[in-house]
């Protein structure tokens, strides 16, 4: 089970970015890059050598490695294929949230390790915004835990099917809040611009400017897996959960790609927020999740 889900995630994660980019290209009237572009990019980067600054230490390389490991670990805690995840235990949803915090800690440390003004700036931004996104994610999980009367992520994420009839308001709020978190955590528009080349405006990308070759390949892959995990997280709340394992898996994966299309549409329809406005939107996400908690507790 673990192996199967790992293979699915590793194989399909970069496809979601391909879907996003293709959607954006079509809306802009362009043909766009190939759907599988990220696979090519990563394959190319893994074959390359890399230059390490003399001022960096082991932390610099640990950043990308831990980021990818953490993202894959988190993906194994999701009920992607069957109705229960390969890794599941009571209270695992706390681990799910903080696995990403761990990865962030090492990504920002790797950024600070270079001593570059740009990267320090990016690390500061990343940490500031993550602090505000984290409560939204946790509060949403808390509301689901109350609905599911359970503390394992697998039951939290499969509770939504029958509860859509009884607690639809709370679920809508959770989805709304998590879509905002999804965009923020994965540095998408309106929070960040994954296409920009302007260092001064970047949040996430600016932290990995000094990574090259295989290390940068890992960074890209970790980003894709993280996006996939968040997509699957939102999808799990929205979707029914059929008992048939194959149907469950197919539905989940299709939903993730549909979310890719949705992100593409969002990115085509709006510009980026001013950096000072980002906390406001993230606090809004937290408040929405808090209202969901209030609704399920009443």
């Amino acid at each position: 089970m673990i192996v199967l889900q790992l293979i699915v995630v590793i194989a399909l994660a970069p496809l979601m970015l391909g879907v996003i980019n293709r959607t954006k290209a079509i809306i802009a009237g362009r043909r766009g890059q190939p759907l599988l572009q990220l696979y090519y990019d990563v394959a190319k980067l893994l074959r390359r050598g890399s230059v390490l600054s003399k001022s960096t230490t082991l932390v610099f390389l640990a950043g990308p490695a831990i980021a990818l490991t953490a993202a894959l670990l988190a993906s194994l805690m999701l009920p992607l294929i069957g109705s229960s995840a390969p890794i599941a235990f009571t209270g695992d949803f706390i681990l799910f949230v903080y696995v990403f915090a761990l990865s962030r800690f090492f990504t920002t440390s790797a950024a600070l390790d270079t001593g570059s003004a740009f990267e320090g700036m990016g690390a500061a931004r990343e940490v500031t915004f993550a602090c505000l996104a984290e409560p939204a994610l946790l509060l949403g999980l808390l509301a689901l835990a109350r609905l599911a009367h359970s503390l394992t992520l697998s039951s939290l994420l499969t509770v939504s099917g029958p509860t859509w009839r009884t607690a639809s308001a709370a679920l809508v709020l959770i989805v709304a809040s998590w879509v905002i978190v999804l965009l923020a955590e994965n540095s998408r528009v309106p929070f960040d611009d994954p296409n920009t080349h302007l260092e001064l405006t970047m949040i996430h990308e600016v932290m990995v400017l000094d990574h090259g070759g295989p290390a940068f390949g890992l960074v890209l892959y970790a980003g894709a897996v993280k996006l996939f995990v968040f997509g699957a997280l939102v999808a799990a709340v929205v979707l029914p959960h059929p008992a048939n394992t194959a149907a469950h898996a197919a539905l989940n994966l299709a939903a993730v790609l549909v979310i890719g299309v949705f992100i593409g549409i969002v990115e085509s329809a709006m510009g980026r927020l001013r950096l000072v406005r980002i906390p406001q939107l993230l606090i809004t996400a937290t408040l929405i999740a808090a209202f969901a908690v209030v609704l399920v507790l009443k």
Partner: protein
Amino acid sequence: MAGELLLLRNAQPARLADVPLLSIPLFRTAILDAVWNEWRVSTLFGREADGHVELVVVMANDGAGQLGIARTRLAGDEFLSLTPECPQLHLFEREIAEQYGIRMTGHPWMKRVRFQQPLRLGASVFEGAPVAGVTDFFRVEGEEVHEVAVGPVHAGVIEPGHFRFQCHGERVFHLEIALGYQHRGLERALIGGPQKKTPYYLETVAGDTTIGHMLAYCHAVEGLSGARVPARAQALRGIALELERLANHTGDLGALSGDVAFLPTASYCGRIRGDYLNLSAELCGSRFGRGLLRPGGVLFNLTDDRIATLIERLDNATRDAVESIALLWSTPTVTERFENTGVIEPELAEEIGMVGVAARACGRAIDVRHDFPTGVYRFANVPVMTAHYGDVNSRASVRWLELERSADFVREQLQALPATPVRATVPPLAADTLVASLTEGWRGEICHVAITGSDGTLSRYKITDPSFHNWFGLALALRDGEISDFPLCNKSFNLSYCGHDL
């Protein structure tokens, strides 16, 4: 008022002997008086005459359409700086210090401008050899202040320039811009001309303003030689200038949209800019208008059977541009990002002598095509477009408004092209004569001053690109702003590096 200045129209020549040679105190008073009376400085530069350094000033009175010229001769290597009283001179004085080794006493910010070798050999007020980017940058000290250095190599395919930010978190206390990486020694190369290569130098003063600079040069040479340019050539020059404006304004609006990650307009405008460039290519075979303008007229005639297709293509491109740029104003996330970003107050814009789109965005109604019309603009009026808040949004909307006016202008001119030849012969240049020629390039006022020696060749050719006036405005627009807004502000000014560096 301005009694000491010699009053001229745009591109009207004057014998050097007629340009008043004022004493230094009178020269200073003349400039300050004129600035007090709503004149502004178009250019101030040095030249060598009889072993002395002479300063020549060209002042512009936009309301009256008059240029005022005066000069003074320095006895030594010192000049009491005017910058404390007249900040718009600060970069001109630094330039004179660098080129002619004049010590500007009392200048508050005396640093190199382009890191160039002095034009007057052996004269330097700076220590050490000039190396681009090596200077004593202003630093804010303090525990929580950090410095961010960007460039001269940038992530995008743009020109080199070095930017130093003194920041407190995301807030910018101060931005210092160091240029000079593109210095090619143009002004020195033009001395002794016009030669065969001179037009090529002028077309590449700033590669994106080929027509603008070339038009200023043509008017200067025609002024000095008394050549009469046929009407059809003048109309074609106007068309080329406006096509250049159309292409660049469209490209800028698309790039602004791209900088706030709003994709539709960014993608469409990239394509439409190409459509406008292709119209220039239709005129002369070059998308940037190279080889079209020459003193005396234009080198390519537009045959009447191609006019209808040109108008159709212009209308198609303009319709697309209008539709896709309209998306910008109807998308709240974009306007929210544009508004109140990089604000320049109108008083500040006037004080530091900003010109062109950036100045009109602050409500300054100055436009060479309207105030100092030459060529076809004497007969066809192009309305001056202004906005009032001096922010990125205003600079974008001025471009948008001008784009529509320019398209109208090109269409009208194409529909009524005079049936005359397109080139006249150019007599030799008059000796010991000065001419100041202004044109409104797409960025703003381009000022060329040509001075001939006793043999009728150019003894000094001064080029002032609008960027030279406006770079300081960009630095001030960032004060107390956010560092993440810099790329957007920079794009909204979109100044030339090579036009500044010469």
